[in-house]
């Protein structure tokens, strides 16, 4: 288990390395600067100690010896400051560049991922990989760069310097300091339990809050305020206790380690003082001062490193999720000799098409369907019967498992995706509005459209009226909440997009489901004009639309169960007939 973990981590590190290695010169520079800076930094306390040794008592101050040492310290500090600054800049550059590249790769990759992957992943998951995982990864990487390496160098060098000054004292420090580490670890482990308790109760409370505040109108309508306050207070009381425990325990880490470090410091002062008395020649007061400063700094990188390691583990976990996304197999690219479909006539054939989302679940099987140019095909059936699946196949959002779909006689697989998709105008039940102006939204499929064309399209979609009532008319920016547009208004905008493009074929998937009956009637007339001469596939529930279709596909549980005109299907007295009948018996 552990070994597998290691292997996995190694492969993630390899993936990260691919990005980091592009900036290898800067990385090498960063390592050199970190090593040099850390070692030089440690020279300073030693030099300060030597300077102090030059000033023993009144009349015994050797200014000639002190002066050059102090100058050395000043120059050295300036050099160190410069190298630390360069190091930071270097690290920033590498890390943010890597972050940019890895995010860009991930985003570009999403554009190539098949919908069969995207549809099965909750949208929030992919977003959080690109945003927060990438962010945490870069933070971990930055910390790793700035602190891990220099921390290790500092620890090693400090030990070396301390042993050079006094082996005995160095031993005291080396033996005692792990104590602070162990204590911190011990507390952190306990705290973890309390923190998870706290976040569990917090989660419970947030659920209660969002439920009660989300349903606040119902709470008030049923005069339920007192009871919900009672339920809230119960959780709130538990949260207060758990929070107290977690906060208190976690706030013990600092004082405890500080106390242990102070004890180490005292031990050094004590033992150091005694050794100066017993052997003043080999261990001077200045050395003691230097030693004390080492001892107080020595524990810092330890605590930092344990923090950095936790961060790095997190960073690797985040990088793993991000790299996983980038490693997902993309769609098969269009072959280089693929045909660009221009000015399609609109003849569509399904030959023995089979398809299912999951291999074990059969959906469309052996579908044969031949639609001549300009025909109108209506697709009806209960919700979940697979009407949308046909649209997915036509647009090549999904590929058929078997059989072939042809447009104007060309198999769709041999046609470039962009040219195939631009041949269809699509309006879906789920509206999607871009975070941009109304004008840009309508011109999505035809960015070169003139203002007149855009407004004409909006008029035909009966959207012009409400757009003009928006605060900035066509230049109103539709934000994340779509600027307060109703579902129906959004649908009208999506319809306007198609009116602007006028592609040779149409796919209308419940395009008017959120529009009230009277507006729909008016759009229906515009649609009728649009559909004239264009091959159209319509998922609809208005009988008038369905009745006028040249061909009706009746779907049930993923299968096409009946095909024919309205009259033929009624005469068949099959599923269509019963659907039709059941609606009108009661009304």
């Amino acid at each position, binding site marked *: 288990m552990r070994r597998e973990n290691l292997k996995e981590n190694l492969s993630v590190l390899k993936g990260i390395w691919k990005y980091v290695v592009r900036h290898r010169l800067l990385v090498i520079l960063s390592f050199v600067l970190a090593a040099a800076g850390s070692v030089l930094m440690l020279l300073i306390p030693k030099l300060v100690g030597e*300077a*102090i040794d*030059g000033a023993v008592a*009144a*009349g*015994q*101050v050797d200014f000639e010896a*002190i002066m050059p040492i*102090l100058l050395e*310290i000043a120059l050295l*500090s300036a050099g*160190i400051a410069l190298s630390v*600054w360069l190091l930071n800049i270097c690290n*920033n550059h590498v890390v*943010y560049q890597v972050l940019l590249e890895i995010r*860009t790769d991930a*985003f570009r990759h*999403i*554009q190539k991922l098949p919908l069969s992957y995207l549809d099965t992943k909750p949208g929030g998951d992919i977003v959080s990989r*690109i*945003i927060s995982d990438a962010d945490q990864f870069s933070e971990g990487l930055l910390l790793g760069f700035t602190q891990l390496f220099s921390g290790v160098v500092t620890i090693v060098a400090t030990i070396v310097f301390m042993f050079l000054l006094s082996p005995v004292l160095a031993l005291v420090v080396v033996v005692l300091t792990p104590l602070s580490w162990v204590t911190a670890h011990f507390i952190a482990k306990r705290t973890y339990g309390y923190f998870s308790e706290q976040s569990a109760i917090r989660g419970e*409370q947030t*659920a209660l809050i969002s*439920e009660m505040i989300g349903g*606040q109108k119902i*709470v*008030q*309508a*049923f005069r339920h305020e007192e009871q*919900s*306050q009672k339920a809230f207070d119960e959780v*709130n009381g538990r949260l207060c206790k758990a*929070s107290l425990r977690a*906060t208190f325990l976690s*706030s013990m880490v600092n004082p405890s380690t*500080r*106390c242990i470090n*102070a004890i180490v*410091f*005292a031990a050094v002062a*004590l033992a150091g003082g*005694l050794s100066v*008395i017993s052997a003043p020649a080999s261990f001077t007061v200045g050395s*003691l001062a230097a030693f004390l400063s080492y001892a107080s700094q020595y524990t810092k990188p330890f605590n930092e490193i344990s923090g950095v390691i936790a961060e790095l583990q997190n960073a690797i976990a985040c990088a793993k999720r991000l790299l996983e996304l980038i490693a997902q197999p993309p769609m098969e690219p269009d072959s280089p000799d693929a045909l660009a479909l221009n000015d399609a006539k609109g003849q569509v054939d399904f030959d023995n098409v089979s398809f299912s989302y999951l291999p074990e679940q059969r959906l469309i099987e052996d579908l044969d369907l031949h639609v001549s140019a300009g025909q109108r095909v209506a697709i009806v*059936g*209960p919700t979940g019967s697979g009407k949308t699946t046909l649209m997915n196949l036509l647009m090549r*959002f999904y590929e058929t498992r078997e059989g072939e779909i042809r447009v104007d006689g060309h198999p769709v697989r041999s046609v470039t995706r962009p040219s195939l*998709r*631009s041949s*269809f105008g699509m309006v*879906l039940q789920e509206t999607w509005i*871009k975070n941009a102006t109304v004008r840009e939204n309508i011109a999505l*499929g035809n960015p070169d459209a003139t203002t007149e064309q855009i407004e004409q399209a909006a008029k035909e979609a009966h959207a012009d009226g409400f757009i003009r009532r928006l605060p900035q008319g066509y230049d109103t920016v539709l934000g994340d909440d779509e600027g307060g547009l*109703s579902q*129906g208004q959004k649908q009208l905008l*999506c319809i306007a997009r198609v009116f602007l493009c006028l592609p040779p074929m149409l796919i209308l998937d419940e395009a008017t489901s959120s529009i*009230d009956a*009277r507006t729909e009637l008016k759009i229906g007339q515009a649609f009728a004009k649009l559909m004239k001469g264009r091959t159209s596939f319509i998922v609809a529930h208005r009988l008038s639309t369905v009745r006028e279709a040249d061909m009706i596909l009746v779907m049930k549980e993923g299968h096409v169960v009946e095909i024919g005109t309205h009259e033929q299907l009624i005469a068949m007295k099959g599923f269509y007939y019963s*659907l039709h009948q059941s609606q009108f018996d*009661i009304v």
Partner: protein
Amino acid sequence: MKKLLFFLKKYRKESILSPLLKMLEALTDLAVPLLVAMIVDDGVAAGDRAVVIRTGLLMVAAALAGLLLAVIAQYFAARASAGAAAQMRHDLFAKIQSLSFTELDRTGTATLITRMTSDVNQVQNGINMGLRLLLRSPFIVFGALIMALLIDVPSALVFALAIPLLGLVVFTIILSTMPLYRGVQHKLDAVLGRTRQNLSGVRVLRAFCKEEEESEQFILSNKDLMRAQKFVGAISAILNPATYLILNLAIVALVWRGAVRIDSGDLSQGQLIALYNYMLQILVELIKLANLIILLSRSGACMKRIGAVLDMRSSLMVKGNAVPEKAEGRVEFEHVSLRYSGAGADSLQNISLSCGAGEHFGIIGATGSGKTSLVQLIPRFYDCTEGCVRVDGVDVRDMDPTFLRGLVGYVPQKAVLFSGSVRENLLWGNPDATDEELWQALRAAQAEEVILNKPGGLDEPVEQDGRNFSGGQRQRLCIARALVGSPRILILDDSSSALDYATDAALRAALRSLPWHPTVFIVSQRISSLRGADRIIVLEEGLCAGQGTHDELLKDCEIYREIDQIQTEGGPVHAS
């Protein structure tokens, strides 16, 4: 700030003791360099081992005393912050429950939830850290300065110069990067927005072949983000080297000056070491202080937002106490207009209607025509801006609000259930209802079978948002919930839209035969649901386009006739 003190009032002892104890703890820190000086001067210089050992042990004792003081102080800080946060959440929740629909609409659910969760957490963290560090860090900085002054005034001049200089650098850099970091966060939000949009619109974007263009736009925002990150990174990168350099130059000055003072016999070697150690202490505390200030300013912003919610006042200011002589369920609207606060136009305009006790009243119209607004005036979810709404002859604004809401059973458009059991949900209508009464309500709401088919019966758990029930089942449970209270007035706000025609018809029949004959308002887009009503009002953009029975409207109201035509001839073909 005043608000904050109010919440800390209950924890006055903790809030005062915690910082004081932290100051005492700081004293033990400040004593250390002095003790080291004693070891050097009285012990080492004099060759007295006993002094060295005694002083060393004293240092250990100081460390232990510091730990003890810190433990108590941290406990008090944790108690005060956790307790104040709990009190804040309690008050916020109570406040939100008292807000009227107008404020709830204006503020929005998401905002209120953020105030109660992350904002309160941030404030709690701020209180905790503030109590612990706000006094301690400055105390150590100034304590070190004072100690230095006590040791030797001329040498301490170096401190007097170094502290302001270090403080200036630390605060300038940390405080100036704060808004820059906020800018980075905004740019990150932009990248997030683009990613989320790209995924939610993947079908449309691919249909219009926008992949390349989207990628380019993404790269632009991403580069924008990177530039901001590098910029703020470059400024932050100055902090460590700059303070390091200043500190070391100060040490150089200190040693030089100290050497001169030692030479003249005014300073001992041990004292110089003590001064050196004080200098090292200062920097750490200054950086801690600057970070604390950032944290506190963030918490302060959160506290302000929390205070804004607590200061909100319900706009349903007038609270009457009248009670009608006889609660029958009569409803009258007299020239009623409604304009939502902040809206540019009236949502209802000059509506008059009258509905007798026990009558069924239908409301029909396109989406956005004001149907829901109309019925929400009856239980006084909103106040009309003109005219007057009367229930049983009493203006609803004069009526005791609790009494009024007890009179009305409301079934919302969106079927909202709460997590718990079916029974708990139904009891919302009337906490004292017996099981038999619950079953009666379920029967009338055509939901009896739904619950009978569940293994738990009335105890069947309801998950959050009722997601373990279908849309139609939820609607029927919401109707049953309203029926449990046997309300005089029942309002169904398009609440049978997910029911099939047969169930809908059976529901209407059941409502007609309820033993207490309530007045019923039915909002619907389907004529078939309203056909049997005693009276129907047709709304069109907030105006009354016609009123009467089904047959009268067919004759006189063009819009009604049109809707009828579409629905009977071009009715839906598929069930859902």
